[in-house]
Each structure stands twice: as C-alpha cells, then as structure tokens.
C-alpha cells in the first residue's frame, strides 16, 4: 500500500496545475465565537468513488482511488478533525493520525497534507467519510478576548484515480470574534424568547450616515447612539428579522433617535406571513392510452409534493424568513383521463412560447372547476410528467401572461426536495435570476437555496429575505399576503445595493442550526 501511495504522490505532481485552476466544491460555515456552544462542530459527509465518471475519462473500476486531505489553519489554532470511514476494507494513512479508534481517526489540524488510501472504485455501497471538526473552547475564548480578525480553518479533500482528478471538496470554518458590547447607547427591543436571536438593520446618523447597520442579538440589543437625521436624507428605516415571525419593516424611525443615549426602538412580533398555494397533482404516465401504476403514483406524487412543501415551510418560516404556506386548494388529478388534463401533463416554462402554451393549458384545467376565489392571490404548484425538475413560469412569461406566469410553478418527479422551495424563491423575488457570480455571489459554495444547480442546503441571505418580503412585486405583496400594519414595500434596483435595498448577497454573521450558514456570500 505504501508503494502505491508513493506512486500516487509522484504522479499527482503532473496534475497539480489543473487542480489548482479549478475551484473546489465549497462547504463553509461561519461562527460568532461568543455564541459557539462547547460541543459545536462543523461536519460533512464525503463520498469516495468515481462519481459519475466512468472508464471513458480514466476512472477505471480496477483503479484504486487515492484521497489527499490538506489542512490549513492559522498559527495557534487548536482544532481536531475526526474522520469516520465506512465501507472500506483496508485503510492506509500517511502520516499516521493522532488517534485511531475503530473506524474513526483523529487528526490535530495543523497545516499539512495527509494521504488516505485503500478505497476501491467499484465499491458499492460507496466508501463514505464523515468529517467533523471541533475547535478548542480555550482558543475561541482567546479570539474573543483579543478581538482577533476572523480565523479560517480548511480541510480540502482531493480524490484521484491514478492521475485523473475525480473530485475536489473543501470544508471551511470561519470563526469571528463578536463585537465588544456597547456600554452606553440606544436600544432595539425585540420581543421573544432570549434564546432566539434576531437580525436588525437600522438607519440613522452619527458622525456620518448609517444605512442598514446590522446587529445580531436577542431581547434588548444595545447599539451605539444614533442622533436625529440632519445631514442624512430621510427616511430612517429599520428591518427586524426573527425566528418564526414576519419581517418587521418600519419605514420611518427618524423620530426615535434623539441626541441622547437610551432611545428605544420597539420591535413588533408579527405572526409569519401566510402565502396561499394550490397543489395540482397531474402527474400520470398515461402515454398512448396506457396508464401504469396509477394508485402507487398518486400516493408518490402526493408524498413528494407535501414533503417538498413541508421543507419549504420550515425553511421560510424558521430561519428569519417569516413566511409560511397554506394549501388552500389541492386537486388530485392523477387518475383523470380527460383530454384537458392529459394536455396539461406536459408543461414547460423554458421559453416564452412554451410558457404561454403552458399557462393556457393550465387555465383549461383550472376552468374545469368553476369560479375560484383565491386564484390570482396564490401560487399554483402543478406536478406534471414532463420537464426538467422544477420551473417558475414567471421567468419567460410575457404580456398578459406575466401575472399568471408569476403565480405558476411546474414540478416533476425528477425533483430533489429543495427544488420547490427554490422555485417559490423565484416567485418571492419575482426574478428568474440565481445566486451566482452574475448576481454578486461568490462561486463554489453550494448551500444557497437560489443557486442554479446542485442544491445541498437551504440557506438564504438577509438580502434575499429582505427582498422576498418587501419587494413590490414579491408574490407576497402581489397577493396581499402581508397584514396592513406591516405592508410597506420597497423597490430594488438590480442585485446590488441601492437606496432602498441591501445587495442580494448581503448577509450577517449568524449561527443558525441546522442550516449551514455559508460564511460570506458576496464575491469580494
């Protein structure tokens, strides 16, 4: 095995340049160290194998895979990486780990490189490594007391088959000191349990203008003294994001701030905004008059639809989104052989012509059921047979199609559970754009719900949630879902920061389990 590893290391010299050019798949977490529980650690499952590359590009099933782990850590960091390996018959590690217990090995994280061998490309089930990183509390205490700049620990896993790169995954943890508490100042008072943090964005004035200054805290949040607007243009606004509550947007808080300390901005506890949805289950394999497995399909479609919607509810309601969904209409048409229904089982929204036809086909089905009081004030989610996985029909709707197109989501049974939440995100943002480099986001991180591909997380930035709730053409505002007492809207320009809006990628440090927070989301 050792000989094999030496061969791998020599050969790998040839491919370093190619690997260095490509960006790794990045899983990143960002912690405020003052809030980090003692046992908090970041963790990830990494599968080892040929992925979907077969013999054509060099990952022969007879080739042993090699895995290289590169650690980086700041000087003085005290952290351990624990790797638990499954489905591997023999394992070799170079250099030896600090501790081996059964199939779990523990490394002290110091800058350097480790090789792990013994994987077989044709193993099924695939070898899996569960990686977790735990940092010493004493190190975190030191970062906080010294107000150190953010510290980053990374583990980069590079898999190869012979000299062929197979995959490249980076795990990163960023640890930031919390700002020192403000002894005297003004207050933002956020009702709710003290264990639940809120995010507050405030406008005001000090020696310069303050725009959407971000604070994170629970209960009473102390901020540096804000004074009445003088040199800065009104209005002063505040937006408060909390757990299981609607975003509290206060469009004019100018009168709150006086020259003295001790001013109090009171947050409101609004219940989550309820967006109505209709579920239309049309999926059926009734091609050519033969409908296979209808009963099983109906149960499957319903389970997939409800599981996807439940995931969306949890994502949007719990993690600062303040939005939930209520199914006001559910129609199971999986058993229908009516021509209008069959025609609507093939819907696409990938260009304007198909979108127009799809909206019309759906209208024909809807018209079979008479007057519908909530139509036009809800999102209609239609599970069909054709398509790629999920599409929001607002992207390519034109002319008179815009409103029904913006309310129509087409789903198939090719979807993963986050895709419905992703399509709802398009409707809430009233945009077919994604969290990618064209819209100011960093590339490589896989956890944002609005990424164009490979969803592995349901994270949304404060900038995204701000627009989803407050944007004039958000589905919530088009449908009048927000209560009158909290119905102020904003108009944003593009994806960047503007007078009324933060940048779409704007985020604040947070430590919200269980979704990976992802660290900085804006491209530098």
């Amino acid at each position, binding site marked *: 095995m050792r000989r094999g590893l030496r061969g791998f290391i020599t050969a790998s010299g040839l*491919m370093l340049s190619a690997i260095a050019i490509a960006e790794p798949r990045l899983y990143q977490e960002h912690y405020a160290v003052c809030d980090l529980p003692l046992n908090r650690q970041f963790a990830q499952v990494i599968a080892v194998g040929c992925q979907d590359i077969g013999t054509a590009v060099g990952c022969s099933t007879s080739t042993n895979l090699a895995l290289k782990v590169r650690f980086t850590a700041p000087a003085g960091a005290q952290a351990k990486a624990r790797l638990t390996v499954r489905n591997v018959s023999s394992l070799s590690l170079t250099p030896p780990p600090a501790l081996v217990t059964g199939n779990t090995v523990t490394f002290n994280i110091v800058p350097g490189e480790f090789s792990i061998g013994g994987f077989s490309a044709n193993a099924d089930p695939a070898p899996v490594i569960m990686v977790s990183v735990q940092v010493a509390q004493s190190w975190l205490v030191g970062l906080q007391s010294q107000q150190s700049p953010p510290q980053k620990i990374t583990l980069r896993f590079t898999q190869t088959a012979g000299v062929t790169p197979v995959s490249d995954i980076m795990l990163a943890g960023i640890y930031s000191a919390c700002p020192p508490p403000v002894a005297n100042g003004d207050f933002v008072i956020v009702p709710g349990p003290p264990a639940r943090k809120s995010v507050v964005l405030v406008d005001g004035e000090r020696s310069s203008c303050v725009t959407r200054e971000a604070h994170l805290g629970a209960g009473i949040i102390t901020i540096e003294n804000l004074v009445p607007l003088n040199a800065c243009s009104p209005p002063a606004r505040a937006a408060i994001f909390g757990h299981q509550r609607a975003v509290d947007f206060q469009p004019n808080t100018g009168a709150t701030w006086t020259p003295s300390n001790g001013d109090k901005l009171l947050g409101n506890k609004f219940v989550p905004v309820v967006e109505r949805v209709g579920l239309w289950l049309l999926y059926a394999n009734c091609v050519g008059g033969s409908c296979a497995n209808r009963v099983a399909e109906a149960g499957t479609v319903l389970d997939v639809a409800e*599981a996807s919607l439940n995931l969306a509810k949890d994502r949007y309601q719990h993690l600062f989104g303040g939005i939930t969904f209520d199914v006001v209409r559910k129609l199971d048409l999986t058993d229908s052989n009516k021509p209008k229904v069959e025609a609507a089982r093939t819907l696409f929204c990938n260009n304007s012509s198909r979108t127009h036809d799809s909206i019309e086909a759906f209208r024909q089905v809807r018209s079979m059921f008479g007057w519908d009081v909530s139509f036009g004030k809800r999102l209609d989610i239609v599970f069909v047979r054709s398509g790629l996985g999920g599409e929001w029909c607002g992207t390519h709707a034109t002319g008179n199609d815009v409103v029904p197109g913006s309310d129509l989501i087409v789903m198939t*049974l090719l979807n993963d559970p986050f895709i419905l939440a992703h399509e709802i995100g398009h409707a809430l943002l009233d945009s077919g754009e994604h969290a990618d480099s064209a819209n100011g986001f960093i590339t490589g991180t896989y956890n944002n719900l609005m990424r164009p591909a490979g969803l592995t997380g349901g994270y949304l930035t404060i900038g995204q949630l701000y627009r989803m709730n407050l944007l004039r053409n958000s589905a919530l505002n088009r449908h009048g879902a927000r209560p009158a007492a909290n119905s102020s809207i904003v108009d944003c320009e593009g994806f960047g920061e503007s007078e009324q809006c933060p940048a779409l990628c704007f985020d604040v440090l947070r430590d919200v389990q269980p979704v990976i927070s992802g660290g900085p989301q804006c491209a530098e």
Partner: protein
Amino acid sequence: MRGVGSTIILFTLGVLTAPGHLEADQRTARITAAQRALDAWYTCIECQDGELDKLLRYRDLVEETLIHTLQNGPSPARRAEIEAGLRSSHQSSPSQTISEDRYVELFMSNADAKFRTRAAMALGRVRSQDALQALREAERNEKLRPDVRLAAKEARTGRSVR
C-alpha cells in the same frame, strides 16, 4: 513591453515543462472540465445556462459514462452523497409527516430518474450508434420508471425537450 514579457514567460514555461507533461496536463485539465460540465448538466435546476451544449463539447470523453448512467443511474459515490443530503434535509425539517426512510426512498427514486433522464437527453444529442442503441434499450427496459423510458424515446426520436 507586455508582449515581450509574455513571450519570456511562455518561453520559460516551454523550457521548464517537458512536452509529455504538458500534454498530460492538458488532458487532465480537459477531463476536469468534462467532469464539471457533466456535474453541471446532472444537477442544474432550470438549465438555462447552456449546460447541455457545454457538455457536448466533451462528447468524446463523456459518451461512455452517459451510457453507463442511463443504464445504471448515478454512481455509488453519488448515491451516497445524495442520501446523506436527503437524510440531513429530513432531519432539519420538523414539519415532515413521512418517515426519514420513506423520504429518502421517494427522493432517491427521483434522483435516479433525473440522472438517467439527463443522460438520455444528452445521448439524444450525441446520436452515435452506441448512444442510439442505449436509448433503444432503455425504452424497452421495463425495470426503468416510465418517465425515464419516455425520456429515452423522446431523445432517440428527436423529440427531446432541449
């Protein structure tokens, strides 16, 4: 001046890099690009950034793996990744009413069908003898989900959606 600098750098690289190494590097870089194109095509959601066209630039490298995916679904390593993600999302979603195993079963079936469907769509554009034969076999394979068989038929007959 900039041109002179570039020339010097290129000349230096040429001296330092043996032709065999350069060729290997280029091949490795192309394989990496093919892998990324394949991954982008398999995992894109709306697929509006030309993912399939980009993949077809590497048809010589990916045809065999596309056929393999149509026949077998995602690789064991990919399945393991997908399953880990599904279990994680179920555990982070208290509103779920179905069991974790049922959830994994449902969405693993979807993932399997998605990978096979995407492979079929790509093979419909490759249109080599081997690709068309694989599509024909998939159409007739009663073990596959009906939507996958339909996708194979559409791809073979040229009625592919993209």
